């Protein structure tokens, strides 16, 4: 079975800052990681490979430094890595990203299963996996907590708000995986060293015969009007004294906020 795992390199979420001028994320000096739930997708692929022998290819679209994320995926045990890095991809929204990824999958050819994380911690849209399935015209299963594949069929258990749903689809298909699906493994040192030396395939949009109009800014109808970090909570007021005194003080404060007593 040929498995493709789509991963995204994201800034470590606790360190994200936004440039107030451009509304863009400030990436300088911020540690980049594999989008956490994409690690679950990689782990799911590796477990499928262990169960029935598969070839696991990780792919990513991003700046040249996204190579680091792919190396981490190789260290976890993926067989092969492909990076689509092209200035023409800059500014891609989910529509353009799913287009580019679909072109990658087409070029790889003969893919049985595509795994993605449920959503990325930076954009938080959760649209790329489903978009990719639509682009390729194949079934999609979102929010999978477990995946089994056999004889050209895939059975996945979906996690929904109040219940699970077990879905069977024909392969090839796209599956997005949730965090609870598994515990991503730590890489072995042998794999860490191997991944450092591994050759990563690098493609451009031209290599994919991609239509430049569907890529990058041109292929992205989404307009980001404004991005801003949530307002920092200012420290509240601390009330001291006896319970009675605190209660009086509190009632007064609430009254001042214009609430009816």
């Amino acid at each position, binding site marked *: 079975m040929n498995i493709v795992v789509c991963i995204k390199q994201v800034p470590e979420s606790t360190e994200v800052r936004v440039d107030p001028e451009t509304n863009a994320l400030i990436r300088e000096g911020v540690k980049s990681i594999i989008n956490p739930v994409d690690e679950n997708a990689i782990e799911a692929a590796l477990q499928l490979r262990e169960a029935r022998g598969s070839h696991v290819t990780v792919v990513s679209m991003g700046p040249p430094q996204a190579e680091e994320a792919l190396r981490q995926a190789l260290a976890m045990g993926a067989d092969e890595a492909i990076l689509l890095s092209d200035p023409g991809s800059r500014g891609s929204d989910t529509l353009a990203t799913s287009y580019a990824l679909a072109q990658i999958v087409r070029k790889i050819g003969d893919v049985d299963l595509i795994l993605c994380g449920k959503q990325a911690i930076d954009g938080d849209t959760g649209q790329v996996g489903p978009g990719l399935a639509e682009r390729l015209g194949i079934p999609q299963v979102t929010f999978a907590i477990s995946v089994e594949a056999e004889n050209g069929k895939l059975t996945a258990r979906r996690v929904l708000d109040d219940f699970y749903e077990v879905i069977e689809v024909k392969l090839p298909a796209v599956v997005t995986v949730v965090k609870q699906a598994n515990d991503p493994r*730590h890489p072995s*040192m*042998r794999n*860490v*060293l191997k991944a450092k030396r591994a050759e990563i395939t690098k493609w451009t949009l031209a290599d994919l015969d991609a239509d430049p109009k569907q890529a990058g800014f041109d292929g992205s109808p989404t307009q980001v009007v404004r991005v801003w970090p949530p307002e920092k909570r200012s420290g509240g007021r601390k009330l001291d004294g006896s319970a009675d005194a605190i209660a009086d003080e509190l009632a007064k404060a609430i009254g001042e906020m214009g609430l009816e007593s």
Partner: protein
Amino acid sequence: MDFTFNEDQQAVLDAVKEFCDEELAPRAQECDEAGKWPAENVEKLAELDLMGIPVGEEYGGLGMDFLTWSAVGEELSRACTTTGAVFGAHMLALAPIMMFGTDEQKEKFLRPLATGEKVGAFGLTEPGAGSDAAAVATKAVEDGDHYVLNGTKIFISNGGEAEIYVIITTTDPARGARGMTAFVVEKDTPGFEFGKDEKKMAFASLPNRELIFTDCRVPKENVLGRRNAGFLVAMRTLGVGRIGMATGAVGLARAALEAAVPYSHQRHQFDKPISSFQAIQFMVADMATEVDCARLLTWRAAWMKDQDMPFEKEAAMAKLYASEVASRVATKAVQIFGGYGYTREFPVERYMREAKLFEIVEGTSEVQRGVIANHVLRELNK
């Protein structure tokens, strides 16, 4: 002089740190309180290729150096002192087989140790042979294709859980240190049994057991090094072992320091964080300086081993200094935590109890001073 790691070493250390932070550290307290062999952690070390770091790839190791092994060991001990101790004791079987094993012995014993399929241990100490290592009374008597072992080892780290043991015996008691022989003995060899597991001041989950040999027949091909050259095997093993103990001590001292500093920022007295008081600041400064010195001594000894230079004195210095630093730093960490430091709510009281081990095991501080003095008195006698 270059104090940086190369890219491979750094990549390994980064991966190990992440593993330590995510897997070992959060469960370290639990690991100690369980009072049982940390099987899951040891399996993880094997899965991550950490059990044979300096062993050549031809025998299933990672093919890196002792410096990397030490730097990794420090991270493990910092995150989980027990797991670090198992890692250190394992080397006491790896090292003598690496240094003295024949190709056949390496294939048979070093490979499973290096891959982590099996855990190793080293048996030297006896009721009557501690600092006086040449007083070993476990006897090995030649009988056809075998030696017959009789005697008892005590305090053996990883004892009972390890599957491959390097055992120091006497084959010619009249010759003392020149009549000792080292053997590889496998668990489940008839006549080899485990006795008491010591109840200790700390390290409840690290076994320190009696090994009891009763007419235990060990094939001659398991002699490690030459017959009657066992004292050399023991001393060379202890040399590496001392780097291992220094490593564990540095890891522990770092854990204590890294616990004390954030606490000193959080803890307020007199309306200020206690970290703003010079009394605390000076303690932190001394702790950090001593940890750094201990680490540099340890890395130097490991580096000298990697360069095939004599390193006995430097390993003794590292072990002596790092173990005493661990005790001092852990004691200061408890002091910074004050009353809370004395409770089991925080790990520092455990660090303080654990630190004492390092001043005793693998040669007491007094033995280390003796080794160092022997070198210095000879070297400088001009």
